[in-house]
C-alpha cells in the first residue's frame, strides 16, 4: 500500500465546464447536478467520451408531488474507480418526458422501463418502452405519490388504528376479493388480449428467418415454471434449429413493489424488508441500506461494529459463491448431489448467522450506527474454526472437483461470452463484470467501512465466459476467506453502537446513495429524505436485475441448452430481480 498510494479521485465541478446547461443541485442536503432535459443527451455523451464516465450504474425517478415535478436521477461512474457523478433531470409531473439514454448505455434499457412502469416517466427514443415489473392490465404507476394500493390504510406507518384503539381483524375481510383489483379505464379482463405479449412473439418470429431456404424460427417460452430458472422467471427465445437468435427475459412474477413498501415504512422498519431482496445474502443487503441511511444521518459506526459488519458481509459472500458453484453443477446436469455439498457449507455459515442475529436467512442484524447486538459467547471461535480450517479446505475440494473437470471445461469455456465493452455498457457488476476483464470492485474503487485497511486482491479474469465467471467466484471466495482471517484476528473490543438505540431515527432532509459490493454485484440504495420519519423515496439498485440486461448478449448465437447455464452463471435471485 505504501508504494502505490491510492489517490482520492474528486468529482469535477461540471457546472463550470458546461456553463449554462448544468447547474449544481443547490437544495440543502442534496448532491449532484441538474441538467435540462434538452441538454441531457449531449452532456452524457460528452461525459462518457471526454471525461471517462463510462459506467451508467443507476437510473431512477423521484416523484416530487408537492412541487409538481418529476425528477430522473442518474448515477455515473468511471470504470477505473471513484465516486459517483449524479445527474438529475427535472420535468413537469403531468408530462414527464425525458430523452432515453438507451443508445448511449444499454444499462439504461431495463431501468428506464422500470421507471416508466413504476413512475410513469416516458423516455423518448427508447425502442421498447413496455411495462417490466407489473403487467399490462395494471392501473396507474404505483410509485407515484398519489397512487394507492387496494389495501390502502394510511400514507405512512405506523398506522394509527393499531394503538391505542387496537383495531384488529383480517384485512381482506374489510376488502373482499374482486373489490381489491383495479384496472385501467376501458380494460376488461374477460375480453383482454395480451397485446404486448403478442408483439413480443411477433418480433421474435421475424428474426432469423431465411427467405431463400423457407426456414422458420421456433419461439420457445422457457419458464416461468422451470427448474432451471432459479425461481419464477421467463425467457422468450427464438430458435433457429438449436441456435438462439433472439431472447427476451420477462419478469415481475415475484413483484411486490418493495420500494412502495419502503416508502410507507419508517427507516428502521425497512431493515427487515431488505433481507427479502436477495434472500441468499441478507447481511449484505442490510449493509447497503445501513450505509445509505448513515450517509444521510452523518454518523459512523464504532470500530468493533465495522469489523462485525465486514465479517458478516464476507461470510455472506463466501456462502453465496459456494452456493453458486452448487448451482453451476446443477445447471450442468449433475442433479442435486453436488448441490447438497454446497448447501452443507452454507448450513454452517447459517448456523453462525442464527446464533448472532436470531435468524438463518432473514437476519435483520444491522442498525444505523452499528449492529443490533454483540457477538454471543463462542461465536467468534466457531468463525475462526471455519475460516482457518474448513473454508480453505472446502474451496480446494471444489477447485479439485470442478476446475479441471473435462465436462465443466467443455461446457463452460467459450459459452456466454461478454466482452469488457459490453459488460461496462450493459452495467454488469460484480463477478460478471470482473470475469470480463474489468477490475472494478467497489471495495477498492470507492472504499466503504474498513475495506481500505484490509489486504485483499481484486479478482479479475479476461475471457468473459461462464468458466471465467466460475473462476472469478472461486478466487473471490478465497479472497473473502483471506479478509475473514484478518478480521477475526484484528477484531477489537468496544461498543457496537454509536449513540443510543432508537426506534425512530432522525434523518435530515437530503438525498444519498449508498452502495456496497454485494456477492451479486453493486447493490445500491438511493434514499431521499424530507426530514420526516419515513423516506420520501427509497430505490434499490438491484445487481441481479441489471446483470440480467446482459443475458441476451450472452445467449445470442449459442445453443438453447447453454441458456440454462448462462442464466445460472449470471447468479440471480428472483427476490431481488422482481423486488
Amino acid at each position, binding site marked *: 500500500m505504501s508504494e502505490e498510494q491510492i489517490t482520492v479521485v474528486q468529482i469535477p465541478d461540471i457546472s463550470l465546464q458546461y456553463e449554462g446547461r448544468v447547474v449544481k443541485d443547490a437544495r440543502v442536503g442534496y448532491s449532484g447536478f441538474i441538467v435540462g432535459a434538452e441538454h441531457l443527451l449531449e452532456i452524457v455523451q460528452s461525459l462518457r467520451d471526454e471525461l471517462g464516465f463510462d459506467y451508467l450504474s443507476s437510473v431512477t425517478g423521484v416523484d416530487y408531488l408537492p412541487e409538481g415535478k418529476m425528477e430522473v436521477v442518474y448515477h455515473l461512474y468511471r470504470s477505473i474507480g471513484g465516486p459517483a457523478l449524479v445527474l438529475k433531470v427535472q420535468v413537469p409531473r403531468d408530462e414527464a418526458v425525458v430523452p432515453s439514454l438507451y443508445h448511449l448505455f444499454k444499462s439504461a434499457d431495463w431501468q428506464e422501463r422500470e421507471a416508466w412502469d413504476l413512475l410513469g416517466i416516458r423516455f423518448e427514443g427508447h425502442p421498447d418502452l413496455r411495462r417490466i415489473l407489473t403487467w399490462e392490465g395494471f392501473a396507474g404507476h404505483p410509485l407515484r405519490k398519489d397512487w394507492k394500493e387496494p389495501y390502502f390504510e394510511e400514507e405512512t*406507518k*405506523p*398506522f394509527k*388504528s*393499531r*394503538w*391505542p*384503539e*387496537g*383495531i*384488529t*381483524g*383480517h384485512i381482506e375481510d374489510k376488502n373482499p376479493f374482486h373489490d381489491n383489483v383495479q384496472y385501467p379505464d376501458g380494460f376488461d379482463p374477460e375480453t383482454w388480449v395480451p397485446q404486448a405479449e403478442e408483439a413480443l412473439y411477433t418480433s421474435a418470429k421475424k428474426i432469423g428467418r431465411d427467405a431463400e431456404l423457407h426456414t422458420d424460427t421456433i419461439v420457445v417460452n422457457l419458464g416461468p415454471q422451470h427448474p432451471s430458472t432459479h425461481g419464477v422467471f421467463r425467457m422468450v427465445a427464438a430458435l433457429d434449429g438449436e441456435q438462439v437468435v433472439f431472447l427476451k427475459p420477462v419478469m415481475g412474477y415475484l413483484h411486490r413493489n418493495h420500494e412502495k413498501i419502503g416508502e410507507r*415504512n*419508517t427507516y*428502521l*422498519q*425497512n*431493515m*427487515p*424488508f431488505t433481507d427479502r431482496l436477495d434472500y441468499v445474502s441478507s447481511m449484505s443487503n442490510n449493509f447497503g441500506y445501513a450505509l445509505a441511511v448513515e450517509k444521510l444521518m452523518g454518523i459512523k459506526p464504532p470500530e468493533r461494529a465495522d469489523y462485525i459488519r465486514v465479517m458478516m458481509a464476507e461470510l455472506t459472500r463466501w456462502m453465496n459463491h459456494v452456493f453458486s458453484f452448487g448451482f453451476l453443477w446443477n445447471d450442468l446436469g449433475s442433479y442435486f*448431489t*453436488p448441490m447438497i*455439498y454446497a448447501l*452443507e457449507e452454507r*448450513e*454452517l455459515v447459517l*448456523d453462525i448467522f*442464527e*446464533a*448472532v*442475529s*436470531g*435468524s438463518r436467512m*432473514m437476519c*435483520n442484524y444491522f442498525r444505523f450506527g452499528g449492529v*443490533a*447486538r454483540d457477538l*454471543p*459467547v463462542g461465536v467468534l471461535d*466457531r468463525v475462526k*474454526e*471455519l475460516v482457518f*480450517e*474448513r473454508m480453505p479446505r472446502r474451496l480446494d*475440494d471444489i477447485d*479439485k*472437483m*470442478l*476446475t*479441471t*473437470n*473435462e*465436462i*465443466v*471445461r467443455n461446457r463452460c469455456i467459450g459459452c456466454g461470452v461478454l466482452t469488457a465493452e459490453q459488460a461496462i455498457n450493459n452495467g454488469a457488476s460484480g463477478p460478471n463484470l470482473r470475469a470480463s476483464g474489468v477490475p472494478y470492485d467497489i471495495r477498492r474503487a470507492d472504499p466503504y467501512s474498513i475495506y481500505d485497511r484490509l489486504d485483499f486482491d481484486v479478482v479479475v479474469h479476461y475471457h468473459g465466459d461462464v468458466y471465467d465467471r466460475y473462476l472469478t467466484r472461486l478466487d473471490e471466495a478465497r479472497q473473502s476467506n483471506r479478509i475473514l482471517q484478518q478480521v477475526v484476528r484484528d477484531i477489537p473490543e468496544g461498543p457496537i453502537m454509536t449513540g443510543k*438505540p432508537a*426506534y*425512530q431515527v432522525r434523518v435530515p432532509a437530503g438525498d444519498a446513495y449508498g452502495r456496497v459490493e454485494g456477492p451479486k454485484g453493486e447493490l445500491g440504495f438511493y434514499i431521499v429524505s424530507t426530514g420526516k420519519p419515513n423516506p420520501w423515496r427509497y430505490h434499490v439498485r438491484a445487481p441481479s436485475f441489471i446483470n440480467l440486461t446482459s443475458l441476451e448478449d450472452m445467449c445470442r448465437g449459442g445453443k438453447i441448452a447453454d441458456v440454462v447455464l448462462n442464466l445460472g452463471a449470471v447468479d440471480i435471485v428472483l427476490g431481488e430481480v422482481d423486488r
Partner: protein
Amino acid sequence: MTGKGFLRMLLGVFKRFVMTYVEDFRKGKKRYYTKEGIESRRKADVQGIFTIQYPEEKLPVPEEFRFLPFLVYDEGPNGEKDLRCTSCGICAKVCPPQCISIVRTNDPVTGKPIPQPKEFYIDVDICMNCGLCAEYCPFDAIKMDHDYEIASYSRQNNIYDIERLAKPVSYYAGIRPTNYAAEEIARQEKEALKAAAKKSATAESAG
C-alpha cells in the same frame, strides 16, 4: 490425460459416499437420535451424513433465535399474572408489517390511561419475526419465542390474543438465560439508582 479431471470429481463423490459409512461405524448408534450425535453433525469438522432427521431429531436453537413474540408476565405469590406490558405502544409503532394492535386500559372513573393493556393482539399471519418489538421494548415485556412448531389447520385463529401470548417469566428465563441474567442485573442497578436518588432527594428536602 483426458478424463483425469472427471475421474477426480468422481473420486471426490465416492469419498463422500464412503465417509458416510466410516462415520457410522466409528460413532455407532450414538450418531443418530442423540444429543451428542446432533451436536457432532453440526461441527466444522463434520464428515459423512450431515442431515438432521426432522422431526425425530431437532436442531437445538441458539439463544438469540427468534420466532413470534410473546408477552412476559411476572408471577405473584398467589399465582396471579402480572403482565409487564404497560401498553405504551412502542412495539406497535416499530412493527414493520404492523401486526400488533393494542387496546389501552382507561380508568373507569377518571378516564385516564392505566399502564396495562386491555387487549393485545398479534396477527401471526403477517408477523415477519424480525424481533424489533422485543429489541425496543423498554420494559422487557415482549420477547421472541423459541417455539417454531405452530402449524394449524385453520387460519381463523391466527390472531393471537393476550391469553395465548402471555407466558411466565420463568419460561423466558429458561429459553434465554444469558439475556435474562443481563436484564435482571440492569434492572437491579436501575432500581438501586432510583432508590439512591429518592434517598438524596428526601435528604435534601429534609435538610
